[in-house]
């Protein structure tokens, strides 16, 4: 029983940073940009979060630094790919390489004493058996997720801005005709993605671990992309994907301790194989934003 609670706890802990970033990547992909630079956003957000909390002696300030740096990466990605019209994948892969290099270099040369966010326990709910402690006794920034997910859903489904973003992802030509600046909306979507991915990375640093280590995101950005694909480009499915992949990670860490042996590689590949299987079996392509990963070129008249 305590094993179950432990695994659930670490599932939540490992899923929350993924879910923050996935809320951002979901917005970006619905706007039609298959943004591969989530890894760069998360990693630089993690470093900024750690250094920010170290300089300001405050975990909350670290999170804000993470968001700010994530937005900067999102702005670079957006400007390069949706203003200068460079190939978005080239820009993204380059940014991933750049973020890994810069943060590793700085981590080697600058010392820091990051502050970890405190644990907040909700009085009554945390006593619910099994799920009480995992869900309601967390590092305090994790609780922001409970508000963030409905907020993203509300913006995307109920606000004009969200409608326009989705229109830009489904049919950019039609959106353009109705007066929506396609590239501008896509840049804005990337700023959202940067902010939320930076937050996810910063949470990893000041929430979960308490410091920055070289390459601490270790491919989580790609898992986030996989989660959006796995979720069939729905917010619900995306968040479910994050918790599934967080759970696989938790199991990988927990199983040897409980005495089970399972090939660790099997659980590590789960986030990458499952989306492919789901897509291949259920033809998810029909649910994919129609203009995903296609640059918008205005037809010259």
């Amino acid at each position, binding site marked *: 029983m305590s094993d179950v609670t432990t695994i659930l706890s670490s599932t939540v802990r490992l899923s929350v940073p993924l879910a923050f970033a996935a809320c951002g990547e979901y917005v970006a992909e619905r706007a039609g940009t*298959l943004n591969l630079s989530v890894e760069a956003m998360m990693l630089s957000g993690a470093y900024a979060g750690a250094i920010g909390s170290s300089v300001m002696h405050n975990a909350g300030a670290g999170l804000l630094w993470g968001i700010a740096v994530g937005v900067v990466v999102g702005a670079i990605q957006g400007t*390069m790919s949706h203003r200068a019209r460079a190939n978005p994948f080239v820009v993204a*892969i380059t940014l991933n390489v750049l973020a890994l*290099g810069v943060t590793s270099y700085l981590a*080697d040369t600058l010392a820091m004493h990051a502050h970890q966010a405190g644990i907040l326990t909700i009085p009554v709910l945390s006593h619910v058996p099994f799920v009480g402690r995992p869900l309601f006794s967390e590092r305090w920034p994790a609780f922001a997720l409970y508000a963030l997910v409905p907020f993203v859903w509300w913006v995307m489904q109920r606000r004009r801005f969200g409608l326009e973003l989705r229109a830009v992802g489904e049919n950019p030509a039609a959106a353009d005709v109705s007066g929506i600046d396609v590239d501008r909306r896509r840049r804005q979507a990337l700023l959202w993605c940067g902010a939320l991915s930076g937050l996810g990375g910063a949470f990893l640093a000041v929430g979960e671990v308490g410091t920055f280590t070289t390459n601490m995101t270790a491919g989580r950005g790609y898992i986030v992309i996989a989660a959006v*694909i796995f979720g069939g480009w729905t917010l619900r499915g995306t968040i479910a994907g994050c918790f599934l992949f967080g759970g696989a990670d938790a199991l990988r860490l927990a199983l040897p301790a409980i005495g089970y042996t399972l090939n660790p590689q099997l659980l590590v590949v789960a986030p990458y194989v499952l989306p492919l299987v789901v897509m291949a079996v259920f033809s998810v392509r029909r649910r994919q934003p129609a203009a995903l990963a296609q640059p918008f070129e205005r037809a*010259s008249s």
Partner: protein
Amino acid sequence: MIEGARARIGSALTTTTLLTVAIAVALALSALLVALTHGPSGSVVSSLYDGSVNGWGSFGATLDASAPLLIVALGTIVTVRAGEFNIGQEGQLAVGALAGAMVAIRVGGPGPLVLVAALAAAALGGALWAGIAALLRYWRGIDIVIGSLLLVFVAGQLLAYAVNSRWLVQEHGPAAQRQAESAPLPSGVRLPRLGHYPNANVGAGFLLALGLAVVLAVALARTRWGFRLRILGHNPVAARRAGISAAVVGAAAIVLSGACAGLAGGVMLTGTAFRLTPAFSNNVGWTGLLVALVARNDVGAAVATALLFGALDAGGGFLSTVGIPSDLVPVVQALVVLGVVLPSALTRRRAARVEATA
């Protein structure tokens, strides 16, 4: 004809100028980064120079580092010409190296024969891995970018699994001494070198890459296959009308680029690494992809760009000797890419605008 030649020379000049400016800016920014962290910023350029082109020994290291980058880039150019976008080279390279290592370590026989077999197996391994992405693309409609990207990470775990299992490529020895790496390649199964280290020294891997570049450049420009690729990439509808099957020509291009990535892994294995480790691919697949795109899918420009990136890789080893973490190398490379991609994208955008208003 003359018009075309002039445009070509002009484009080559633009590329060269852009590269030069981008390198200068990238180096300056990197030195600034070192200065900001109170490191020996003055040594950035000189140690990169010492490690890459100063003397035959360093130059040989540069050629060794360039060879796999060039081979990966050549495959990438084929797919981009066909209008496809395989970004899974990092994984295809790893699977190729694994297949090559299995042949090199497990198959006995005369060295040169095994060497050729190992390289062929490496190409085949990469082709198979890319084939999965091609199959998903044309049979199940899964976007090639998504499919090939996700397979990169599956390949990474496959490699990690292989180097940890005794029956695949690991050394047979007492359990306590075994590490997560393959047995070393037999000394006969190594790519020959012309000249002896540290003097004039060219690895056969680079010559192989260069030969491949020539063959490919001719094939792309002069054969029916190259023509079909171009039609498919430029106008899929016209290609269908002309009886060019996207599924056949496109899938073949993806598989061929996988074979190139796999061969690159084989060249790294038999040319410089001589054993497999979990982190074997070491971003070479990603960097090779960037080389192709910086070179704007021109084979000649790819050779120059691969040499430049290889020089940065080789020079990076010297950074640590003056106390600068070698993490700076990917930073310089990434800045070069951004420095080349941004202005050329802006130029193209301006040209498009002028055309639109005219």
